[in-house]
């Protein structure tokens, strides 16, 4: 294992220190915690947004703390849900007296720890609501299992719910728009290499030079199938076929797309994938209103990418294009 670290045990702590030093105009760290909060909190009476999860997905979630997106982000150990006491600190930091929305990705550990935290925060008098993102179409959606994972589609939830909260909407309204995004957003990814969890010291799995893992999650957990390597065009087709079928996507629909690198795939390759996704959607008669390409929700140094589609209506489009100013996502006002 070769990593730019000091001690394995200090990885998360030291990364948070570095982030706050890099972005003092955006972020503060709540003392004695792993919570990043806005350096300039939103006004009283606005709904707060808290997200969090294991570390190793940078810039998620601390990179999205700022105007128009999150109010606080809680970092767990690498690929491990944060603990309830830390989440409660995040909720307190985000509370501006109008309630706090928790955006949780659908993983057993995250759900349990956020549940416990919510119970604690509510007993301390902070009104909370929670939404669970489950956008990964690679995983079968079944009531009898854990259900689908939450992956990069979470970024669209942060953006759209965060924009509405910034406008002064109520907790119910912010929760409703987050749930609306979750109901529509779909993603799927693939890995070309594994990643190495610092504490484990070796790659989580092995892939041959000519193999890829389809339907990968964001924790190095195995995907749904191992198969021979594909071209960028074939990859876009494989992912979009599955996403489109799940969405019932049809010609004339407007969508936003997120092309998300998993940590080690260069922007050059992600751009090729973006071009293929756009081309595929053009061929299908789907209108691509917005596309973001880059690293939004990574899996340490995994090579590979995920593609997310979100069908848009006028309101979702306006909220997606609303201004935001965070370390990882800065967007000016769009002048139509």
């Amino acid at each position, binding site marked *: 294992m070769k990593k730019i670290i000091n001690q394995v045990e200090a990885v998360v702590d030291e990364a948070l220190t570095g982030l706050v030093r890099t972005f003092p105009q955006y972020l503060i760290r709540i003392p004695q915690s792993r919570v990043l909060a806005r350096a300039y909190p939103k006004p009283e009476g606005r709904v707060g947004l808290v997200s969090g999860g294991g570390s190793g997905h940078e810039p998620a979630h601390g990179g999205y703390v700022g105007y128009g997106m999150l109010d606080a982000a809680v970092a767990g150990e690498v690929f491990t849900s944060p603990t309830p006491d830390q989440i409660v600190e995040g909720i307190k930091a985000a509370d501006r007296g109008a309630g706090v929305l928790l955006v949780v990705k659908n*993983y057993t550990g995250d759900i349990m720890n956020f549940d416990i935290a919510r119970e604690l925060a509510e007993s301390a008098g902070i009104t909370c609501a929670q939404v669970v993102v489950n956008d990964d179409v690679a995983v079968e959606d079944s009531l009898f299992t854990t259900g689908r994972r939450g992956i990069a589609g979470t970024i669209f939830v942060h953006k759209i719910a965060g924009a509405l909260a910034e406008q002064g909407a109520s907790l119910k309204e912010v929760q409703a728009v987050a749930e609306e995004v979750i109901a529509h957003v779909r993603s799927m990814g693939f890995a070309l290499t594994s990643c190495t969890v610092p504490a484990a010291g070796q790659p989580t799995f092995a892939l041959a030079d000519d193999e890829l893992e389809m339907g990968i999650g964001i924790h190095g957990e195995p995907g749904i199938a191992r198969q021979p390597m594909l071209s960028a065009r074939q990859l876009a087709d494989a992912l979009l076929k599955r996403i489109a079928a799940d969405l019932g996507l049809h010609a004339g629909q407007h969508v936003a797309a997120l092309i998300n690198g998993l940590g080690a795939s260069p922007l050059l390759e992600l751009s090729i994938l973006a071009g293929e996704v756009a081309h595929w959607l053009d061929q299908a008669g789907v209108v691509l209103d917005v596309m973001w390409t880059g690293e939004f929700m990574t899996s340490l140094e995994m090579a590979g990418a995920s593609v997310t589609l979100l069908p848009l209506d006028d309101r979702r489009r306006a909220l997606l294009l609303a201004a935001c100013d965070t370390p990882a996502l800065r967007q000016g006002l769009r002048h139509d």
Partner: protein
Amino acid sequence: MTNREFASLWLCFKRSVADSREYLNALDAAIGDADHGTNLQRGLDKVAAERAAWGELTLDASCQRIAMTLLSTVGGASGALWGSGLLKSAAVLPNALWCDEATVAAAIGRFVGSVAERGKAVIGDKTMLDVFLPALHELEAGLARGQPFSQVVRQIAADAGNWARDTAALQAKRGRAAYLGPRSVGHIDPGAWSSALWWRCLADSAGGGS
């Protein structure tokens, strides 16, 4: 069970998990994210470091301390399940330095109930319950038959490894391994394995006392 036996149970569990850390991580790498041993060890190291504080505490208080420590240091599903489960156990343990064996069984029963409820899991889902449920059943049945506690837990400790190994045949329904679907078959569940370690420590710590 005395508070000293309770303390030695957790110190034993800390040593067992430390000794098995790489194995637990390797089991987790096959069907999860390779950190089950690391996460449990982080929490149990903290528990051991705080040992001086809870060594002379009553059973309910020391169980509560351990619960809060695991809840705030382990993270993931394991931290939530062990932590919130032990909080339920602490509620039935007495404000005393000793309790009878029926109370130990009741405390474990509360723990198992909490894990099942919080994890929404049942037997056969390839989780820690695939060790804890049959173990609890054996404990209750053995005590009902009038067998000595030490004998019952020693038998459970002997069986627990097999129950954990038997999870290899199961397809995961809960937790991160569930995403693998049929590909989760053929691998032992790491949470079941660490649970078997806990039962061995219970047998070592309390198994000789009665």
